[in-house]
């Protein structure tokens, strides 16, 4: 078990290294291979219009775009670990650790901005994930146990709709009805932090939660249903019944536990990914989260910000993966052997 944990930890660290290399490659290596020169980089990053060619070349030199890629990668990683400074020729910009990037356009380091926006994204992701997990699994289990019933067909029909309908559609519809027409919930763009008022916090997020959860609950219901149908046909379920267990215990203790194992995996991945920003939901409800930050960065062509979001999301996914792997070993004793 201990070797298993250590091996998973090492794997996670290695994964982070790989992720950083891939991210770096996307933003620096591939453009260079495609013929983007150091001065182009300087232009793009600092974006000073009307600067002379010499100024830009000088800037490129100062910012190190002329250095070999390995050196640039080293400097970038060092920035994440220890922070770095950028000499733009005009001023020296400080970017304290962890320096995930420095936006020359807004003249701000990326990390503090991400930190500002994380509470929104985390609130959104965690709240929604609890809702979809409970609703999706419950629906899936009921559907499986009443296969072919009206409930099953209706639930699966709704689930199919849920999987197919995009957030900006369901989100808009619910905003129109619940916020503007009936006034039950707050309009988009409102976010009250949890520390300020938990009730207001939940109230401000309830609509985005449900909208986002609907999408995921649909696929979780389908997954749970399939998993339960398979598990309930297993021999050990028959054994549990033969022992004289009440059906409710057969379902929860023997059936659901086994059926949930694959769900745990997907759940971890989904939450990890969402923590990097629910772009559509945040945009639809105008929530100032990481996803919306990414969208704004993309429209402003602010590469350091985009790169920061990508790195953050990747880290979340790796960490979520690690947690899932460890959970898996707790749930399924057979995994511990590996």
């Amino acid at each position, binding site marked *: 078990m201990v*070797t298993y944990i*250590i*091996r998973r930890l*090492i794997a996670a660290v290695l994964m982070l290294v790989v992720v950083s290399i891939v991210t770096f490659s996307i933003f620096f290596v591939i453009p260079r291979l495609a013929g983007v020169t150091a001065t182009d980089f300087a232009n793009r990053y600092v974006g000073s219009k009307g600067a002379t060619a010499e100024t830009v070349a000088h800037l490129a030199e100062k910012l190190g775009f002329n250095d070999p890629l390995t050196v640039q990668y080293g400097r970038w990683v060092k920035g994440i670990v220890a922070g770095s400074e950028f000499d733009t020729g005009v001023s020296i910009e400080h970017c304290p650790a962890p320096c995930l990037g420095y936006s020359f356009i807004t003249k701000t380091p990326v990390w503090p901005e991400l930190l500002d926006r994380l509470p929104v994204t985390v609130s959104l992701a965690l709240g929604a994930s609890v809702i979809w997990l409970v609703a999706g699994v419950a629906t899936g289990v009921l559907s499986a146990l009443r296969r072919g019933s009206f409930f099953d067909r209706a639930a699966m029909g709704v689930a199919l709709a849920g999987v197919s309908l995009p957030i900006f559609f369901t989100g808009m519809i619910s905003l129109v009805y619940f916020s503007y027409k009936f006034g039950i919930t707050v309009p988009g763009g409102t976010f009250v932090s949890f520390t300020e008022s938990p009730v207001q916090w939940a109230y401000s997020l309830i609509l985005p939660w449900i909208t986002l959860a609907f999408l995921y609950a649909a696929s979780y219901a389908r997954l749970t249903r399939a998993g339960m149908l398979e598990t309930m046909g297993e021999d050990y379920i028959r054994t549990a019944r033969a022992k004289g267990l009440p059906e409710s215990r057969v379902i929860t203790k023997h059936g659901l536990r086994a059926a949930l194992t694959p769900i745990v995996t997907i759940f971890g991945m989904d939450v990890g990914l969402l923590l990097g920003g629910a772009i559509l939901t945040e945009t639809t409800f105008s929530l100032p989260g990481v996803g919306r930050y990414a969208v704004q960065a993309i429209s402003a062509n602010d590469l350091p910000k985009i790169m920061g979001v990508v790195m953050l999301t990747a880290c979340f996914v790796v960490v979520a993966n690690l947690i899932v792997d460890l959970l898996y070993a707790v749930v399924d004793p057979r995994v511990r052997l590996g």
Partner: protein
Amino acid sequence: MSRASEPLLSVQGLEKHFPVTKGLLKRQVGAVRAVDGIGFDVVKGETLGLVGESGCGKTTTGRLITRLIEPTGGKIVFDGRDITHMSQGRLRPLRRDMQMIFQDPYSSLNPRHTVGAIVGAPYRIQGIKTEHGVKRAVQEILELVGLNPEHYNRYPHEFSGGQRQRIGIARTLALKPKLIIADEPVSALDVSIQAQVVNLLEDLQSELDLTYVVIAHDLSVVRHISDRVAVMYLGKIVEMADRTDLYGSPMHPYTNALLSAVPIPDVRRRSERERIRLQGDVPSPLNPPPACRFHTRCWKAQEICRKVEPPLTALAPGHQVACHFPENLSGDAPPAPAAGQEKEPGTISPVS
């Protein structure tokens, strides 16, 4: 059957060790000695049976002979050629002569292909032209294995278990092989169907002059179908002899235990039958017991069995045993077969 000629298949010192890794760095800490130095010859026209319990290496042996997996050591000579480490490319033409029948007729047939495509596939893979076209050739084979040639265009799911195993056999026969390795060919089938397939294999052998290596755990089926039988235990052959000798006067304690463990459908003798009851299960091939591998379960084991590995030697003509204290050595009267009655093989025609 002809015994004088060169062996069609000759296996010497064959080994297959699967590495076992452990710890963070996946260091190799040992090996599962699935097959650990076995040797036998199979002459043309005969049937060699390989029996043993799970984990004894019989299935691995079958896969080694057909080179589905790469041997760790030893030598396989087929039809005069050393194929031990032959490349897959050079092996391909030889595959025509050496075919394999698998246990599970359900999973070894592609459900999306018609019977015609399945049985005809070997022709296409090997690029062989047939006189009257592939379809005709396939239909002839289908008829040979007792299937309706008109079922050429049907899919595997339209057939019963026994018929599917016939399809599997038809596929192996397409290229007129010399050697067929059958791995548990009947164990997935119903009792009445098992007998049909066993008879079919025997008929085909005499009609097409086939040579078989039959791998099975069912001692009765192996006795029925084999000329010679090798008993395997934890990657080794512990006893090999003509079936009459092996079943009539088994010398290795393990063979004796195996035979006495088989339930006999005879209610009169159930109380009086003497049994050897082995303790426990087969040890793991990862850490097989030293020297004689059977000593942990053997009631005759002495100090020497734990120290010195008994070699496989011929203690009677054509009867090889690897044991320090063999039973039924010449001099002892060979005991009657389990039932306690000796009978001459019958010559009656079967009821039909």
